């Protein structure tokens, strides 16, 4: 099916003095699982509502399969939404909830019955037709909301943080289910979330948003390994952001100075010059004995060792004052990390990435702990 492609062209929406969406361009392919990721207030929910039709754009176009949707009211768009609070009609039972859209479209009674029962089976809620929403658990309500939207066979399904209200274990299970359903039905999913782990797990591609702009659009691997801005690097996982002065490319890598130390950074904007940032993912940082020497090595001291079950997290204070996190899988080779030990921190050039300067002109945000289970707890704004 080559239907379900969404294009946002120079889309802009303002609420009074606040610009929620500031001229964004996004192309979503038919049949892909596309996530809008960002902190509260970044404009992701507004973008979703614009696609759904609940808000009118101030400027720009919304194209569904190359047809401009601006003049079409929400009830006529072949786009359906799964709301954050599910918005199941409390006075109707599950069957009537799911059948609602079909009845609006004047589908015949027999067909309604078949389609509703089929989709309820697909979301594993067969037999629940007579229940009322108030009698269902959170996960079940979520699946009814999904069924209600899917039964209409939309080209695009919009999901507004649908798993936000569920506990961690249920969330993980439903993430897999949603991904399975999306691949099975082949519908384009536009998924809004503030949970970077969720986005990384489920998406074909992600758009990271901040302050109404799109920072970067890429696949999860690309986004994680090759972040293009300080914000993206810092939002996904731990970045080990460090402020350096870059001196341009030399021999396929960028010469930088971190305090008194020379570092060669082999990825990113290697031709950059001036004050900027470099990043390296904690799993690429190598901790060597203090005596070790070589390129890209900075002496430091282990400040903290944190045990994470499957891995160890080391927080090391470099001689320059920067704090670096390193991650080691506990693979059975014994390593005894002791707080206070002097070490050499090796930042391999092929893993060290040069970024353009951050928004505040090079200020380093404080490093986050590796969040293995819990995403940031945020109250999503509209």
């Amino acid at each position, binding site marked *: 099916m080559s239907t379900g492609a969404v294009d946002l062209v120079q889309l802009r929406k303002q609420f009074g003095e606040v610009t929620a969406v500031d001229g964004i361009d996004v192309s979503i392919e038919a049949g892909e699982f596309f996530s809008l990721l960002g902190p509260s207030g970044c404009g992701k929910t507004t973008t979703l509502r614009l696609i759904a039709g609940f808000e009118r754009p101030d400027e720009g176009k919304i194209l569904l399969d190359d047809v401009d949707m601006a003049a079409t009211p929400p009830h006529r768009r072949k786009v359906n*939404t799964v709301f954050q609070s599910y918005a199941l*009609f409390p006075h109707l039972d599950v069957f009537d909830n799911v059948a*609602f859209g079909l009845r*609006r*479209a004047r589908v015949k009674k027999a067909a309604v019955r078949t389609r509703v029962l089929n989709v309820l089976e697909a979301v594993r809620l067969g037999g629940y037709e007579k229940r*009322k929403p108030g009698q269902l658990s959170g996960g079940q309500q979520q699946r009814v909301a999904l069924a*209600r*939207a899917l039964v209409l066979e939309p080209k695009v399904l919009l999901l507004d943080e649908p798993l936000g209200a569920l506990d961690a274990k249920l969330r993980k299970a439903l993430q897999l289910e949603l991904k399975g359903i999306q691949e099975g039905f082949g519908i384009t999913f536009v998924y809004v979330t503030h949970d970077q782990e969720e986005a990384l797990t489920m998406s074909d591609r992600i758009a990271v948003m901040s302050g109404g702009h799109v920072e970067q659009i890429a696949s999860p691997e690309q986004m994680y390994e090759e972040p293009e801005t300080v914000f993206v690097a810092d939002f996904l996982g731990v970045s080990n952001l460090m402020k350096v002065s870059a001196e341009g490319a030399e021999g396929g890598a960028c010469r930088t100075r971190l305090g008194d130390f020379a570092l060669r950074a082999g990825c990113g904007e290697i031709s950059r010059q001036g004050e900027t940032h470099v990043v390296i993912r904690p799993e690429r940082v190598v901790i060597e004995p203090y005596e070790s020497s070589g390129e890209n090595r900075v002496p430091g001291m282990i400040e903290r060792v944190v045990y994470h079950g499957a891995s160890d997290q080391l927080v090391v204070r470099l001689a320059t004052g920067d704090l670096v996190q390193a991650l080691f899988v506990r693979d059975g080779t014994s390593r005894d990390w002791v707080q206070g030990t002097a070490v050499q921190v090796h930042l391999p050039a092929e893993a060290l990435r040069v970024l353009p300067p951050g928004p505040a002109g090079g200020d380093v945000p404080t490093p986050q702990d590796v969040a293995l289970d819990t995403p940031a707890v945020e109250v999503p704004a509209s």
Partner: protein
Amino acid sequence: MKRVRDWFANPWGQPRALGTITWLYMAWSIVPVLIAILFSFNDGRSRSVWQGFSTRWYWGDPNLSVFHDPAARSALEQSLRLAGLDMLIAVPLGVGLAIGLTRWRGYGAKPVNYLMLFPLVTPEIVMGVSLLLVFVLLYSIPLGTEAQVLGQVTFSISYVVIIVRGRLLSIGPEYEEAARDLGASQFAAFRLVLVPLLAPAVFASFIVVFALSIDDFVVTDYLSAGSPTQTVPIAIYSNARGGTTTPALNALATVMVVVTLLAVGLAYFVYRWAARSQPGTSGRALNEIAALEV
């Protein structure tokens, strides 16, 4: 005496003094009314001295009982007639106003909101006077039932708005958005989703308007045209101090109280039943009915 003092001074238990005051207040508040109701069953003509039990003032006495006295029956009928008309007109107007005000994004919303709030803080005599003047001098509407209905609806609308608007705000826009997302036009979403969710609140406003109308005195009196348009409160007002007043007046008042309490009781149970499947309404039904009166 020490035991009584200790009972009062218990530091861990409920503050006994406050509890006592509260129950005393409740007694002081309700007992006089109960006594008045009791005297409506008095065998003699006195409203203050008990002379035995009898239902003569309700239907026994061929001339003066509520059932037989044409003035009393007329007052009862007029009260119910006005209440019925008030409900039929004020509730739709108020519901419409509530819905419109909650969703209106334009410039007219604020002034209309203030317009709706003013009747709530206006003393009844000011409303009675203003309506009397405007009916006589401007609109040429004769005093009587029509005028009384017009007046009652005017102050009832605001109460309906407050009740319905509260419910609208807690319902929120999401359900209608979901309905429209699934293919319902704006009007269909309103009809299929909002209306059922709003039904308990609308029902509650019917009852509130009924009670407001039944108990109203000033506006109804100012716009009345003599005894055929007299209501029960007016009858009470006119005859309360009378030397020849019998317990029939108590009986008349009791009938009104019973009717009102039955209506409210019914409303409470219907509201609970209708709102049982809706978010945020169960359990606090009592509090909600309490809040309505403000």
